């Protein structure tokens, strides 16, 4: 199955972006890496032949990134530093 290599590569990319989201110093960078993670998740779902799930993950990725950014904005504003 030739798709297997591509699939493996995509999951590997997910692991990389996920790790860098966890290890990024800056929270904003972390959130951006997290949305990249979400994007690769969409690609992986598409490769796995699940358009419905991919579509849902795409919109959920947008919404959750928005939530994160809005929350981050509030947190920065409220922080003592």
């Amino acid at each position, binding site marked *: 199955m030739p798709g297997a290599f591509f*699939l493996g590569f995509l999951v*590997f990319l997910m692991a990389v972006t996920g790790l860098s989201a966890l290890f990024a110093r800056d929270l904003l960078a972390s959130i951006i890496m997290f949305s990249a993670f979400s994007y690769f998740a969409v690609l992986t*779902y598409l490769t796995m032949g699940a358009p419905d799930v991919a579509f*849902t993950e795409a919109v959920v990725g947008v919404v959750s990134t928005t939530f*994160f950014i809005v929350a981050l904005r509030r947190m920065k504003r409220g922080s003592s530093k």
Partner: protein
Amino acid sequence: MRELFTEHLIYWLILFLFMLGPYGMIFKKNLVKKLMSMNIMQVAVILFFLALGQKTGGTIPINLPGLIGAEHYINPLPHTLMLTAIVVSLATLGVSLGLLLTVQKRYGTLEEDELLRRMNQ
């Protein structure tokens, strides 16, 4: 090599992603990052289920005219289940971000050590 890929490696990668969740939750001190590792864990479960439904010679589970028979389509059940799981992950994310905002507002920090120190004051 190809056998390894098709049979184990994808599961391994997925399970690695899955265990990234507990790892991040234990070792990352920032609460936002804990939240992210929780989300990564949920995505890994979704990938796991979708991987179960894969089928050689199967296409996406939408009826095509003239293509009849179960062997031509990917199993739709995991997709359905995972739609639910994605929605659950979004719901959990919303609630926990709300919690984080409240914590931040009261204690002024999201670093775990600092938070524990301020809570005990």
